[in-house]
């Protein structure tokens, strides 16, 4: 063993401790970086050249220390848990947001909502019944009918606007997914080449994990780590990213709320064998579900169902009021025609097409034919429409309560799933986040080791000094 070998041992220690200190420095620098996974320099002792040979001379000690790897202390299972809980939480949060916003647009129960306007409208008819000869109560009924039609149309428009915005947001999500997928494919390629050449791709992996979590949040995509260090991301069993290849998805289907029933907005793969994308969760799944058209059993998209409720309300008002109004006659004996009119254009939804056909109080048919001119029995009958079993009021109230129940359920399940997402995220952070105290202790340890190695160097230097400068000068 060479006299100088201890020098190189000390040198290896100096280099190793510095490298470890570098890693600690990197950890502290990224203590607050989102998605950063803490790293640790893994060291190993270098063994002596132990090959026995003719010239080998007795026992040898090791040759120092070396950094074998900079390990990334993440937990792939914790990461997977975060992704799956995020995809569920995002899906439910998107649904809850839609419901909560829709609910504020109906403004019930209040003194200004549709229910209050309906009650006002029915009460107005009683006043007409009390005094059919006076144009004032008639004018009041016409005004409240006008306000009612506007309230219905406003509610419908609010649902339509929200539908349009949700669709636009979904298009933005699809763009984000396509962008993230192509970045992920590039990262896969870079990580593979870095890893193959023996480099350190830890930071790239952090970025890739952020992207896979983002994709899980948007689409509920699942991620699988491959042997070559790349990840495969799948939606509904089909590859979104495989190695360095990414596949695009697109949002197709109706661009209007009215067309959603026949052609609901949905996702499709943009490749030769185009097919539907089956989402497993994520914000987009929640949004696409909210965009679905209305169904007869009420299980359609939240927004389309709300719009359908406004349509039903308009149709019921039109049918029920007109049916009674048509049996009456005005004070001049003219048979009552339509009180409400619906747009003849089939493209106009009833909620928007509902208008008051009677323009003047004299056109209100308050009396029954055969009775005196000032008879108000038909007006009274119209005033009682609101209390019948199949009245528009009941249907509206049922819709409001149903929406309330759904909103409450959606908010609660969103809260629960958000809680489990937060727990999963906390577990992930527990493994991967940087602890300043821990890094400080590590720094201290490395610093001491560095000092020790430097002392070894000094000691060897002094030994050599004895040999070189003091040898052969006995008695001098």
């Amino acid at each position, binding site marked *: 063993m060479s006299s100088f070998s201890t020098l190189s041992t000390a040198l290896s220690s100096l280099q190793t401790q510095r490298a470890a200190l570098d890693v600690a420095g990197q950890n502290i620098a990224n203590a607050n970086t989102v998605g950063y996974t803490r790293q640790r320099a893994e060291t190993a002792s270098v063994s002596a050249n132990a090959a026995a040979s003719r010239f080998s001379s007795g026992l040898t000690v090791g040759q120092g220390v070396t950094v074998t790897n900079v390990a990334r202390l993440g937990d792939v299972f914790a990461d997977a848990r975060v992704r799956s809980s995020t995809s569920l939480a995002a899906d439910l949060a998107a649904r809850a947001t839609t419901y909560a916003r829709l609910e504020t647009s109906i403004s019930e129960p209040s003194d200004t909502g549709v229910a209050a306007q309906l009650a006002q409208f029915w009460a107005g008819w009683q006043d007409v019944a009390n005094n059919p000869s006076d144009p004032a109560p008639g004018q009041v009924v016409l005004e409240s009918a006008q306000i009612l039609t506007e309230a219905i149309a406003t509610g419908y428009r609010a649902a339509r606007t929200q539908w349009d915005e949700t669709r636009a947001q979904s298009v933005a999500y699809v763009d984000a997914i396509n962008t993230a997928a192509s970045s992920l494919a590039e990262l896969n390629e870079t990580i593979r080449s870095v890893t193959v050449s023996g480099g350190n791709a830890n930071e790239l992996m952090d970025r890739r994990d952020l992207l896979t979590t983002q994709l899980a949040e948007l689409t509920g995509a699942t991620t699988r780590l491959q042997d070559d260090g790349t990840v495969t991301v799948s939606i509904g069993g089909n590859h979104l990213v495989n190695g360095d290849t990414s596949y695009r998805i697109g949002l197709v289907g109706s661009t209007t709320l009215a067309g959603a029933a026949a052609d609901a907005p949905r996702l499709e793969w943009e490749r030769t064998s185009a097919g539907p994308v089956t989402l497993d969760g994520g914000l987009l799944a929640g949004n696409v579900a909210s965009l679905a058209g209305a169904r007869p059993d009420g299980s359609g998209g939240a927004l389309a169902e709300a719009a359908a409720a406004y349509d039903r309300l308009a149709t019921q008002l039109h049918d029920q009021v007109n049916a009674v109004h048509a049996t009456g006659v005005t004070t001049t004996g003219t048979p009552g025609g339509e009180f409400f009119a619906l747009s003849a254009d089939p493209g106009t939804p009833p909620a928007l097409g509902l208008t008051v056909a009677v323009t003047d109080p004299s056109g209100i048919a308050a*009396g029954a034919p055969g009775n005196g001119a*000032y008879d*108000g*029995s038909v007006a009274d009958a119209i*005033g009682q429409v609101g209390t019948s079993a199949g009245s528009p009021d009941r249907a509206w109230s049922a819709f409001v309560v149903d929406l309330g129940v759904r*909103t409450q359920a959606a908010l609660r399940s969103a809260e629960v799933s958000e809680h489990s997402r937060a727990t999963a995220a906390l577990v992930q952070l527990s493994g991967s*986040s940087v602890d300043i105290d821990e890094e*400080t202790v590590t720094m201290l340890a490395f610093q001491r080791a560095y000092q020790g190695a430097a002392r070894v160097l000094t000691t060897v230097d002094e030994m050599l000094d004895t040999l070189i400068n003091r040898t052969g000068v006995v008695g001098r």
Partner: protein
Amino acid sequence: MSVTRVTHQMSQQTTLANVQRNLAAMSKLQGQASSLRRIEKPSDDPAGTAQALRLRAESRALAQYDRNAADGRGWLTAVDTAMQTTSSQLVRARTLVVQAANSGTTTAESAEALALEIEAVRDALLGQANATYQGRSIFAGTSDADAAYARQPDGTYTYAGGAGSVDRRIAEDVVVRVDGDGAAVFGDGTDNVFALLDRVAADIRAGADVAGAIDEIDTWHHRTTSALATTGARTNQVEAQIAVNASAKLSLKADISAVEDVDLAETLVQLQTQEVAYQAALGATARVLQPTLLQYLS
């Protein structure tokens, strides 16, 4: 799931989430305490919303029934007044006819005076029969004629009513007739009290015996008093319903309040508790986030 390793980032996030949750709960309570409403939107309490919607509709309908009843009471009072006067006028007519029936004492002049007075009674009755309330003839039913009874040039009378009555809905299922039945009180067609009085006046002038008319007048008087009784009964019904509506209005108001409004004492106590929790969370944050090992190393 136990968490063994705890880092500053974790405690930061957990603390932030806790403070946020406390603040959200406090802001919700503050909103309730300031608006005093427990149900701001249907999801706050779907079952309560259903009740609130129904109670509000009932409350609005009740207010309208109250208006209807008040209007009906006005009508009934007008009818009652008119019929009271009618009754006293008929009594007066009977007295005159009794006087005229004592034919032994009547001269041509006194007969003429009696006839004129009878005609005056007839005009008074006609005036009552054509009484109006808010521009509507109260004995003409649903007719739009200006007067219930009109004297024709040939001396006959026409009745404009008879086609439907004036009704008021004073509760959801209670409809009350509020006009006077002209045909019952004054008659219609050729058989009416005015024609009778005309005939009596003519008979007195002609010196004919009018004793037979006393019974006829009595019959009309009976019809008036029985109509008066009916009107009184209806007025009672309306008054009673107004009282019922008033108490129903109060209990509805209490019900709406119970469903929609917050219990202020409870909310304030909750708010106070939440405030303490929030301050505790803030205090804990200040203690947890500050220290690191670095402070103790020189």
